[in-house]
């Protein structure tokens, strides 16, 4: 009997050994992520990847802000005469407002990566999607067109910072245009012209695909707060208008801005303030949707949660407004108390309507608005010396914003200055001022609120961002920006 028990126990030992030897033990699969080799068989997978691409825009180094570079929202304004750094600042963005950045700047590195990370996700959305075309062409077109347009749009943002020139046919250094996901590729910089070629090609292909879809990308008419979060044909037209305007191709800029204006009229004076509270989406062509738990948008300028106004609007900017009658002034700026004293802070991105009592900085980033479309068209007309048409657009916009506006009569250089000032007033902290100065070869001149680092020469190397040092080290084909 006793011997029998021993045998059982020995058998048990042997069994344990045998059980543990099964190689299935080490064949484990993730449960909370998806294996890329297994997924991407259905259109829903590609739709999810596209949603992922949009979500990349929420990064703190793209449109988000708290502790990130906020590169494509407010950072560019911090580098200009629109804003000055206050004593409340923790100094984290001084490299930018003082233009002392170098190729090893962590924020420049992060911004480069954040942009190409959106592009990566677009390219993953496009990877092998064509194999579904035969069964579901309309759905493929709907997903593919957005991925192409978003890819082009983000490349254009990269070109704005890193392109050595702005004009359509510039042979100066542009940017790498990345249209596949391949970790081993080491792309070189195209010329500015070639960069534009690629951007416009993708945008035009997207427009074409949008003519043949299984269903609309989003409601064309809704002005609900969740509406207009995706790039549809109207938004694509808006992007094209902006691209052609930067490129100096006035005819195309007029063509596409006109289409956008026709589809999305200017907001009423009553609706305008509500745009910034995300209570409606009047005149918004495309806005990137931030929801609770995402990052704040303008935190680097005014951190609403902590009431810290690191950067404040300059007198030089605020003096341009008719502070009583212009609906923009009260929508954009407010006196808020700190330490018993009031100071003027940017409230454009303070909160959605429901959170205004306890602002958290979480608002949608309005990427494209009809106001900009009018200014693009006015600029394009002026460039074509069609001053009457330019003035008409400018007056239409000003009348829409300013109570009791008496139409202006500017001509010649005064008209160009008026358009430029209107861009500052209309688009402050929407990521334009730096690039407007750059593309017209002007200098930054902080004539108010400034003691040190008050101007940046028009010829300074800092107008073009350096390629991050990490990229230079990893990619032998890429050329550093001149001067770095």
């Amino acid at each position, binding site marked *: 009997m006793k011997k029998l028990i*021993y045998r059982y*126990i*020995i058998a048990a*030992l042997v069994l*344990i*050994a045998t059980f*543990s*030897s099964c190689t299935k*033990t*080490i064949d*484990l*699969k*993730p*449960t909370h*992520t*998806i294996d890329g*080799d297994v*997924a991407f068989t259905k259109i829903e*997978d590609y739709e*999810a*990847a596209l*949603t992922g691409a949009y*979500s*990349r825009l929420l990064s703190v180094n793209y449109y988000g802000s708290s502790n990130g570079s906020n590169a494509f929202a407010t950072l560019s304004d911090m580098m200009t005469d629109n804003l000055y750094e206050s*004593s409340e600042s923790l100094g984290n963005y*001084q490299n930018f407002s*003082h233009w*002392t950045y*170098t190729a*090893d700047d962590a924020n420049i*590195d992060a911004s480069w*990566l954040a942009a*190409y*990370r959106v*592009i*990566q996700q677009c390219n993953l959305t496009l990877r092998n999607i064509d194999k579904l075309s035969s069964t579901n062409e309309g759905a493929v077109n709907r997903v593919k067109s957005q991925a192409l347009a978003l890819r082009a749009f983000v490349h254009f943002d990269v070109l704005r910072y890193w392109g050595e020139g702005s004009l359509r046919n510039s042979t100066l250094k542009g940017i*790498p245009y*990345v249209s596949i996901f*391949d*970790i081993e*590729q080491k*792309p070189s910089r195209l010329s500015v012209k070639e960069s534009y070629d690629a951007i416009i090609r993708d945008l035009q292909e997207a427009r074409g695909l949008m003519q043949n879809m299984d269903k609309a990308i989003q409601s064309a008419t809704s002005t609900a707060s*969740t509406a207009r*979060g*995706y790039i549809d044909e109207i938004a694509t037209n808006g992007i094209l208008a902006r691209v052609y305007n930067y490129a100096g191709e006035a005819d195309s800029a007029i063509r596409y801005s006109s289409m956008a204006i026709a589809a999305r009229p200017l907001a009423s004076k009553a609706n305008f303030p509500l745009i910034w509270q995300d209570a409606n989406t009047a005149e918004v062509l495309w806005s990137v949707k931030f*929801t*609770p*738990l995402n990052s704040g948008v303008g935190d680097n300028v005014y951190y609403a*949660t*902590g009431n*810290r106004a690191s950067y404040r609007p300059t007198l030089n900017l605020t003096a341009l407004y008719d502070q009583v009658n212009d609906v923009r002034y009260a929508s954009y700026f407010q006196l808020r108390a*700190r*330490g018993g004293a009031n100071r003027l802070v940017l409230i454009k991105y303070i909160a959605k309507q*429901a959170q205004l009592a*306890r*602002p958290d900085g979480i608002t949608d980033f309005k990427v494209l608005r009809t106001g900009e479309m009018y200014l693009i068209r006015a600029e394009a007309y002026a460039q074509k010396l069609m001053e009457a048409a330019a003035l008409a657009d400018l007056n239409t916009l000003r009348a829409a914003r300013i109570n009791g506006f008496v139409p202006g009569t500017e001509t010649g250089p005064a008209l160009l200055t008026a358009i430029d000032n209107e861009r500052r007033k209309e688009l402050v902290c929407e990521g334009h001022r730096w690039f407007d100065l750059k593309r017209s070869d002007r200098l930054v001149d902080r004539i108010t609120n400034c003691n040190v680092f008050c101007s940046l020469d028009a010829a300074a190397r800092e107008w073009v961002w350096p390629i991050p*040092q990490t*990229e230079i*080290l*990893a990619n032998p084909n890429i050329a550093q920006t001149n001067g770095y």
Partner: protein
Amino acid sequence: MKKLTLAIIIIINSFPLFAQKTVTGTVTDAQDGAVLSGVNITGNGKAATTNSSGKYSIEVPDNTVLLFTRVGYAELSLNAGINSVVDVSLQLIRRNLQEVVITGYNIQTRRQSVSSISKIGGDDVRSQPIGSFEQLLQGRSPGILIQSQSGQPGSAATVTIRGKGSVLGSTDPLYILDGVQITSSDFQSINPSDIETYNVLKDAMGTAQYGSRGANGVIVITTKRGANQKTRLNYDVQYGKSELPNSKLQLMSSAEKINYELNYDRPDGMNPNGWTAEEADSLSKINANWKDALFRKSTTVQHQLSIAGGNDKTKFFASGSVFDQQGIVITTGLRRVTGRINLDHTLGNFRIGLNTYIGSSKFTNTNENDQFIGSPLNALRWANPYVTPYLPDGSYNETDLLLQGQPNAVKELVENPVSNKQLKLVGGLNVEYRFPMIKGLAARSNIGIDYTENERQQYFDRSTYQGSQQTGGRGSFGQNETKNNRQTITTSISYTKPSGVHRYNISLFNEVVKRKFNGFGYTGFGLVGPFKNGAGITPGTSSNGFIPVVTSTETENAILSYFAIGDYSYRNKYFISGTVRRDGSSRLADDNKWTTFGAVGASWLVSAENFMSNSKLISDLKLKVSYGSSANQGVGDDYEAKEQFGPSSYNGTGGLILTNLKKGDLTWEVRRSFNAGVDFGILKNRVTGSVECYNANTVGLYLNRQVSGTNGVNTVLTNLGKLQNRGIEVALNVTPVQTKNITWTIGGNFTYNKNKILALDGTNENVNANLNSINRVGESANSIYVVRYAGVDPATGDALYYTKDGKGTTHQYDPNDKVIVGKYDPPYFGGFNSSINLKGIEASFLFTYSFGNKIFNGDRVNVENPLYYVSNISKDLLTEWQQPGDITNIPSPFNDFQPNTTRFVEDGGYIRLRNITLSYTPALVMLGKYKVSSLRFFVQGQNLYTWSKFKGYDPEVATGYLQGAQYPALKAITVGMNIGL
């Protein structure tokens, strides 16, 4: 080896009185209860020796003092009185060849072992008032660098064995507790007093046995077990106080700060706060004491009760303990309750062992090593001295944030409680069967589990700054629970031939180590009502902004292994060992799952040769050498080789984003190490020691291969580089005096480790700008890479920097001028100790030291940046450049501030009085009539003084890069008592 306890246990039986009689008894080893043969007993001119079963017999008169001596053991003398049976245990005091070491899966004596193993006795170190056991080992043994970056009770130290063999991967050693792998850096719930020995396996002979887990060294821990002896009860108690050490970083007083604000010119003008003369005058007189508001003299209390005993069939050890240590920062601390039962039972040819351990702890901590303005430890630096923590009515002073640039740190700390509760279960069942038909053949199976459950709760009060930053701006409550379950199942069969000219052992193993981790957590927002917990959460709606966050994760990995270990010895003088292990891992790509590791080693016991046997000088001499490989698996996640897409969300819709790149070629980074050493004992082992040298090359080093950022990622984890650690370790123990009444020992150890990168990813260097570090071929990993600061130009007040070639200086800070100025990891380290025992009164000390490294002091960056004058700043800024001709080291505030320079790089060397103990052990004979078998009283000081140039609290900065908010190691004094019945 310093000894803290005598731990001499004698059992004296009373017998009737005779004038001259025969005294008999058994002599055993105090540590493992093994009988000791060859012990010399003298008394009254007679002498005797114990036989092979440890028994002796000697004829002496009553009240003779017997002297027991044996090589390697402490002498013991005692009055036999009228007893006729005197059983004694001798304490091993010096490492010698008979010492038993755990070589991994097996146990050998040092004589047999060819490995490099450091053994530290649990009882030698356990009295130190520290919550996490690995910190007890600091300075005790060569080759092991232990850096406790944090003084928070219960926080873990960084342990590095023989240099960092990995750049990206973990450098934590593998911890094996009674045969069960336990999670490293997770020791808050382990009771150090249960630990019998720490065996640190340093060379390939030991680590190759653990294959893909062993590259960073292995610490094999055994817990105490019962013995065939009378039941013993031990009670230990300890009580002490801790306080904040001094800091060399001086900040401004109120008068200095107000003076600075009023009289020093700066970009936004003098007197930026606009103080009137009266205000300035009254503020100058306030000297707020933030230190007293945030820190305290804290208490440590420790109780432990253990009971051990058994008979020839069943042995047991049981213990219970309570450890309660307050941190020096108010609110912080660790409270732990533990229990253990270890059972051994022999049934015929079966031996069954059962270990069960349960530990429960509550760890309350605060943020540290960060630059966050909400961190209370930063507030100590940054709070203006003219702003008091409390208002006169006792409420928090919340003078507008603008004044200080930060919230009230006391309020943030007290009103935002955080707690980490941990439940830890470590248990195992092992069964051994000795085949009766074939002598020496045995089968073993060990099934063990390491289960940890963590519950972290974080409350942010809506009235605090951090609370206002929560989603919805009205505080939050979050709870996160994780469960970590690791099973280790080892089955083996072995054959041993333990005697004769040829002796050998061969063991075949199969092992499975499976780990499953899952976590669940939530954070709710919009706290209402008086609740400081989940009850106060406002249910989230689409409009109120209080939508809670819920997280969930689960991940799993497994290793399946087959391995063999063999040892052979010839004439018990020449030894050869070998190991081969094949590991299959779930974490690698399908084509790459299996890897083979192995090691061979040999040793020669020179002192056992005939030509040495008469040497009066040399008592022990052994040469050893080994070579082999093991790997490191501590990198990436469990599915690192697969292309993974994780969840994302946009505009209320769920999406997928790429979270991990596919890495089909990923494999382990393999460390191949060579070890050669000599162990010696001189003058009857009055002097013992060892010298070892090693060379370990890590190949397939995990590196973040730089790829073009245009792919959306700029690095890919790849097996690429080559890294070398070579070094020398010396340990020496001397007993200058060993007489009947006085024992004096001196011990010391020294390690030099040279770390060198041999190859990177095709490029020559890899810079980490965030930590001011660089990995460059030919240099140490983690070298400090900054621009050299050249002082201040007296004419302009601008900072000057050396150009790259070092020949000139420039006003323009340029990152291209960065050079290597030192290394973060100390190449030289060790410890030395001494103890004197005079008739039971013992004084001992331990110094630990490390040098040759540098520290980047980020703490100073934040108080020397003139931009941050709104909060408090360094006293040194009073010497700021003001006008042409000023000779100073602090640039003008108009000059662009640049932190990444040698201005903030400091010498990291230090020497520390780690422990000093004074103890008294009353003579045993005196104790006999009180039925007490052992008694010891002690008073000790921990970290009482540190010699260092570092401008901060504590030069022990494990990463070398101090961000700020340093929680220094506790400076403590405790008193305690051990009593045995």
